[in-house]
Structure formats: C-alpha cells, structure tokens
C-alpha cells in the first residue's frame, strides 16, 4: 500500500504541472471591462453631444470625427470589427458619472488632461490624441485683435470645462475685469453668444473650428489666433482595470506608430506580406504574438490600420485638410516632423 501511495504521489507531482501548464500559459490578469466588451459584442464609447470634426452625428445618425475614429480603432483592435461601437453622447457634466458607473468603457470626448481629474475622479488618461489650445471666437465687427481687448466684456462658456477656469484665471492674472456666464451645455453657450448675450465664446481652437457651423452666419464671426493655454486631450479610462487601460493606451500608440512607419490603410496588406522591418512585423502581428499578451488576437493593430487608418489618415479625414475644419497638423504631427506625437517602441 505504501509503495502504491508513493507511486501515486510521484505521478501526480509530475502530471500536475504538465496538465496545469497550458492553463497557466493563458493566465492573464482578469479584466472586467474586456470580458464585458467581449460578452456584449460591442464597445461602449462616451463621446461629445455633437462637436463637428471630433464626434458628431449627421442627420442619418452616423457618427464621425477624430474621437469617433479612436473608438472605431478600439473596436477593431478588441473585436476585429470597427463598426461594433455604440456611442453615448454626454454633456460636460454627464461624462464623469457615465464613465465611473461603468456605463461606457472609455471616454473619447476631447477631454483635457488635468491633475485634479486624475487625482479626485478615479480616472486615468491613456495618452494624447489631440493637442488643443484655448482661444476665443468674437464677432468680426467688434474689431478684436488680441485676447486682452476683451476686457470689460462678457464671455459665454460651458460650466465645468477647463476653459471656464483658464479664462477666469487668465483675466484675473492681468487685473482685467470680465464677466463669465456659465451654461450647462456647450450648445446653450453657443446660441447665447450668437444671440448677442456675450461678446465672446471660448473653447479650444480645434473645437471652435468645428462649432463654427452652428452659428447663424459663420462669416460674421472670427476665431482669434492667440492661444491662452495648451490643453492635451486623450482617451480616458477608470481606475482599477489595468489590462483594459493597457489596451486603450496601445491602440492609440498603434495608430501613431503606423503613421511613423508609413503603414496606411492602402498599403497595410503589402507591408504585412513583404516588410522586413522588425517593428512593423511585430505591430502587424507577423511575429511576436503581442496581441495575445493583452488578451486580443494578434491581428489587433492590422485591423486598426486596415479598417480605420493610421493617425495621419484619421486626422486629415476628420479635422485636417480633407474636412470642413481645415486644421493644420501643428503640434499634432509626429515628433520627427516637428510635432509632439510620440509613441514608445513596439518591442
């Protein structure tokens, strides 16, 4: 009996790791959000109520914009299909509870990265997809050339946005008196400015280029070129789900890296088949199995570039020269070309 007991113990000691090994190889940190997305079959994305160029629904209900393209990239990476996204339009107030309560998986809503948001709201910023700068739109008739000419004026702003505090601080530092009227929604502030309640409306220069179409007579308004603050904006996730945060971060990095390596939606198949660049091969999943390390398929970055495009293509299509906004790349260019977009290497 003792002999057979010894044999059984030895056998189990040898067999156990062999049986457990395959299971252990697949063990990744649990990700509640990723599991929920896979079970649901689509990504829930929190977007703006309607900001042309960034996240805007046309009258057929089709969403388009830079942030919308980011959501589509996420869906392409996680689920393999860029169309599997549901958009939740949120106001400046609604965006935080909607993310904190797990109603959306990520917030792609031209949200500025600030210390107090990171520290007190339980949210994390996973990178920068647009470098914004705050400025003002005024009536051309008012002949305002610099921001300080707005002293003694009235400024409409959306309550709770970074623009509200930045504008108040800017004028206070220079001892200039200005009246700031807070509205609950950006659209209310815009129509009040249009009606003449305020002398100026303040938002980011990219956002203003988009909001311009909402004015009754866009030609009568002029967007100032003086920038009073730099606002980096990027996708936002909540604390606690590190693997999901990893996926969100590297989806954005993949788009930027694709542009850095010259991979576009048109040549991605050719690059995948023929490229000898080691990093390109790792990005496109030819070698390295990077997708599996995150819990996704190895095609994740290939799907992003094939279905949505790299960062440059997305930018030109939504806010750049190929769109109605006609914004120049400026800081939103690759660092090798004089801009600020940078990604760590795919190694």
């Amino acid at each position, binding site marked *: 009996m003792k002999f057979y007991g010894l044999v059984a113990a030895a056998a189990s000691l040898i067999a156990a790791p062999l049986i457990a090994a395959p299971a252990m190889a697949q063990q990744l940190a649990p990700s509640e959000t990723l599991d929920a997305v896979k079970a649901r079959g689509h990504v829930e994305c929190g977007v703006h109520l309607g900001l042309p160029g960034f996240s805007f629904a046309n009258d057929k209900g089709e969403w388009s914009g830079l942030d919308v393209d980011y959501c589509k990239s996420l869906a392409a990476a996680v689920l393999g299909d860029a169309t599997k996204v549901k958009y939740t339009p949120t106001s400046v*107030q609604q965006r935080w509870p909607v993310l904190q309560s797990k109603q959306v998986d990520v917030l792609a809503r031209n949200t500025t990265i600030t210390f*107090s948001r990171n520290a*007190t709201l339980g*949210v994390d910023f996973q990178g920068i997809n647009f470098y914004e700068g705050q400025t003002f739109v005024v009536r051309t008739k008012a002949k305002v050339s610099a921001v300080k000419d707005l002293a003694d004026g009235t400024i409409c702003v959306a*309550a*709770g946005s970074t623009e509200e*505090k930045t504008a108040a601080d800017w004028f*206070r530092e220079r001892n200039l008196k200005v009246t700031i009227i807070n509205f609950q929604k950006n659209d209310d502030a815009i129509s009040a400015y249009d*009606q003449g309640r305020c002398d100026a409306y303040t938002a980011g220069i990219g956002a203003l280029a988009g909001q311009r179409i909402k004015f009754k007579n866009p030609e009568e308004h002029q967007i100032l070129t003086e920038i009073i603050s730099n606002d980096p904006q990027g996708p936002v996730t909540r604390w606690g789900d590190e693997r999901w945060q990893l996926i969100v971060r590297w989806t954005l990095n993949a788009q930027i890296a694709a542009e850095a390596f010259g991979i576009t939606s048109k040549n991605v198949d050719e690059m995948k088949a023929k490229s000898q660049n080691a990093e390109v091969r790792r990005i496109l999943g030819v070698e390295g199995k990077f997708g599996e390390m995150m819990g996704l398929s190895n095609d994740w970055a290939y799907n992003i570039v094939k279905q949505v495009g790299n960062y440059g293509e997305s930018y030109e299509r939504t806010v750049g020269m190929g769109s109605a906004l006609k914004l120049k790349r400026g800081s939103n260019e690759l660092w090798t070309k004089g801009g600020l977009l940078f990604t760590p290497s795919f190694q």
Partner: protein
Amino acid sequence: MLLGVRHRGGDYSAVSGALSAMLTFLRDRKVRDILWQAAATLVTVAVIWFFVRNASENMVKAGIASGFRFLWRDSGIEVPFNITGYKPSDNLLSLLWTGIVNTLLVSAASIVVATVVGFTVGLLRLSRNWLLSTLAGFYIEFVRNIPLLFFVLFWYFGVLAALPLPRGSYDMLGVIFLNRRGLSIPTPNDVSGLRLALLVIILLVAVQYGIARWARARQARTGRDFPVWPVGFVLCGGLPIAALVVGGMTTTWDLPILRGFNYRGGFVLVPEFVALFAALSTYTAGFIAEVVRGGIQSVRQGQIDAAKALGLTHGRIVRLVVIPQAMPVIIPPITSQYLNLIKNSSFGAAIAYPEIVAVFMGSALVSTGQSIEIIAITLGIYLVLSLSVSVFMNWYNARHKLVTR
C-alpha cells in the same frame, strides 16, 4: 423532597410573576407604540447607514474622492450675478451660500408677483364682465398647458432678442441703461443717508397701521368713517419717496459708464434673472388664479346675499366677507404652489442664472467630481426651504382659520 417541591414551586411563581408583569407591560397600548417606533427608527437608521457605508467604500475603491472637506477648497468658479460679494477666490462653501441667496432672491420676488397677479386673474375670472373673464380664462389655460421650460427659454431668448446691444442701450434719465447684457442701475457709495430714510419709512408705516386700527375702532364705536386710504397714500407713498430722495442726495453714486464692450459700475440686473423671474411669476400665477377661484366659489351664496341685504357695496363684500372666508380654503393649495415655484427656480440652470442647481450641482459638481455629497447637500437645502415655507403657511392658516361650532 417536600422541601424541594416547595422550592421549585417558589421558583415557578417568581418566573411566572415576572412573565405576567412583562405581559401587562406589553399590553399597554402606549408602550407597544413606543416599541414599534423604536424598532422602525432602528431599521431606518440601519438601512441609511448601510447605504452610506456601501457608497463610500465603493468610491474609495474606485479612487473617487469622498467626504465633505471639498467644501473648503477654493472654488475658482465665476458667478456673474450675486449680492453676497462672492469672488472666485472664496471657497466652495461661500459658492453654496451665493447659490442659496440667488435662489431665495428669485423665488421671493416671483412669489410676491405671482400671488398678486394670481389673485387678480382669479378675481377677474369670476367677474361679471364677459370680456375680462374670458381673457382671464385664456391666460390661465395657456399658462397651465405649456411646460415651464418653454416659458423660461421663451422669456430668455425672446427678451434677449428684443433688447439692443450695449452701444445702443435704452437709457432712462441718463443713469439707468437697459440692454442685452442687463439692466444697469446706479448704486450709492454711502448708504447711511438711505438707512436713515429707511428708518423714517418704517416709522411712517407703523403710524399708518396705528391710524388704521384707531379708525376701525372709532367706526365700531361711533359708525363714523375715516379716509384711511388717502391718508395712507400720503404717509406710505408720498412721504417715503421724499425721504428716499433726500437720502439719495446725501451720497455720491456709482454710475454705470460705457467702457468698451459693456457698462461698468453700478449694479447689473442680468437678463437671466429677469427671464426666470418673469417666467416663474406668470406660470405660477395661472395656477394660483385657479386656486383663488376655487376658494371664492366655496363661500356660500347665503353669505353674499346677507351682505347685500346689509347694504354693503360690492368691493366691501369681496374684501370683508368673501375673501376672509375663502382664505382657509385657498391657503393649503397655495402653499403647494409656492413650494413648486421654489423647486422650479432650478430651471435657472437652463439659462445660466446662477442659482443653486446651476452653480453648485452644476459647476461645483463637475469641478470636484463628488456627485453624491453635492446632490445630498442640494436635496437637503431644498428640503429645508420647502419645510420653512410650509411651516410658515401652516401657522398663517391656523391664525386665520374660521372657528366653527
């Protein structure tokens, strides 16, 4: 053995004595009521404590800041219309106080005007003049069938569109300016002269009240009339205005002057306040009119016939017979309308009037992210406001209740 039996019998009688005492105690109705109350209180407290603990633990886990210390943080939020002297460098607690004051301001002003307009329209609705009563009916139906948000937006955007830009303001007497940015009124630099005038006015009002009481007593004694109203016009109308003018002449004034884009100086009554005030007053007046109509129609026809038989004029019948008997019927529903008005002042958030919902539940909530604490505080404040109004109205009603046999 015998001893043991007796001993056991002794035990039983002690226990049964205690049991029967307890049963008698419980059979008392008052004791049972108190015990049920205590149990209900304990359960309520336990449930609330559980939810609060649960919420705060989950918030800590999610990295969301919690607690009430955020109230002492610097606010940084601009409030363009305030009479408390709030600056963005003050803390969130004074922002909260500013919001409360603004809510009270618009609510109090609207309650006064809504009551006056409501009573008038209600009485007109019962007028024998067909045109007046039909017009009143149209007003009431129009106002009761359209949502308040529409009125608020209509008054705000409608009024805004009608007013001129600052460069072309309407000016009254060269010192008061009305334009799209608001009504600019000069403010006195030194209020001591006006404080004296205010004291004089209070004295005059007290004198008028004394005269009215004396006149009523004299009429009860001798039947002789006294022209109380004309005396009142002088004492409470002409003389106070003269006092204010004299008081105003003793100080220098901070006049609104056009500087660049806007008028600077003086006090600015923003269009948001005017729009919200107008919308709330006209809307609630329609409901108050119906309440008043119901109250007046509840007075028995016999009372009016008897008053006519006594030879009272129509105005005196309404003032001395109908309205005092209609008040106990009118006051409870009017209390509800006042509470509705106070809660409806939160529509100010839709047009950027800085009342408590816009300023605290809007700006402060987004800048600190502490939704649960802020919403709880706002609920508490509305509760306190509403309860105060109810308590006051109930006291007023009890004072005017008709003593019936």
